[in-house]
């Protein structure tokens, strides 16, 4: 009987290991977000700075110095933190701005079931510079092994302008039957 239980334990361990193998941390700018859509739907991009995904035409414009609130999602749970960086048109970190622009601890650690991903918002001040062809880079720093962090990357395309159009005025709402 002892041998039998040992065999069961070993078999279960094997099954668990096989099923758990793909469970690396994944995160990306939120899919279908109208504010911060990711370049790629893939949440498991491990190649810096943007997973090898080319720039898109889905570019969000920002005013220099404005407050930005972006949304992202964790698709596989792991401990760690999130960082946002500003990348230039060559996908290099922009010098002379806070680096990272923002940091957020991973505070949601329940298992993710049925694609109910952990949703996060992150806010920061947009640097007061002109930046064309730039991107906000989301980095998920996975800390299952704190001595050997593993990162995931997701980029959303943006531009920043120090010039502004005139602020719209007179906004009114009417209910229609």
């Amino acid at each position, binding site marked *: 009987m002892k041998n039998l239980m040992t065999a069961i334990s070993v078999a*279960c361990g094997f099954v668990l290991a096989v099923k758990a193998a793909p469970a690396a941390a994944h995160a990306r700018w939120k899919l279908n977000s109208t504010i911060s859509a990711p370049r790629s739907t893939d949440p498991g991009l491990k190649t810096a700075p943007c997973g090898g995904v080319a720039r898109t035409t889905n570019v969000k414009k920002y005013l220099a110095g404005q407050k930005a609130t972006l949304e992202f999602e964790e698709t*596989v749970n792991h401990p760690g933190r999130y960082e946002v960086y500003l990348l230039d048109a060559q996908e290099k970190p922009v010098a002379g701005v806070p680096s990272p622009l923002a940091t957020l601890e991973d505070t949601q650690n329940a298992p993710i079931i*049925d694609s109910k991903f952990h949703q996060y918002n992150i806010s920061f001040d947009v640097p007061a510079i002109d930046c064309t062809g730039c991107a906000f880079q989301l980095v998920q720093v996975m800390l299952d092994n704190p001595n050997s962090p593993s990162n995931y990357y997701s980029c959303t395309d943006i531009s920043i302008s120090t010039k*502004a159009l005139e602020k719209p005025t007179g*906004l009114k709402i*009417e209910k229609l039957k």
Partner: protein
Amino acid sequence: MKTGLRTSVAAIFLVWGCSTQVAPLPMASLKPNASSKSNVDGSASQPQTQSNTQNQTGTAPQPNETTSSLRLSWSKSTSASVGAYQIYLAPPAEGPAKLLKSVSSGTGISVPTTVDVPLKDLGTTPVAGSKVCFYIVAEDPETISPPSEEACAQF
């Protein structure tokens, strides 16, 4: 016989034991990105005002109502280069705004200053007693404007 029984018991334990230990693995969504518009997120920096609210009939918590859509209108910008206005649904609290629509001009046509937003486009149906707030942003190919003051509809 004894060995066969042990094997059967082991198989049952294996299936049951493993099935109770392994939670379903999450699957990443492969839905395509629906948005292809350009814009700005300026909601967090905007004070919320109700000065422009019209038709705030929603004092009685009626299951609202016969409203099918909201008509937003605003003043024409004097900025010659405005090519589009972006319509944003303001977040009820801290958080990102949601871009609902972009209204732009065709060649040689001035940019509209009115847009109808069907309630179904809000994502959730407003409940009685709630309000939904909007702001707009002007845009040209190079830059954008600060967000307008918010306007709210009471339900």
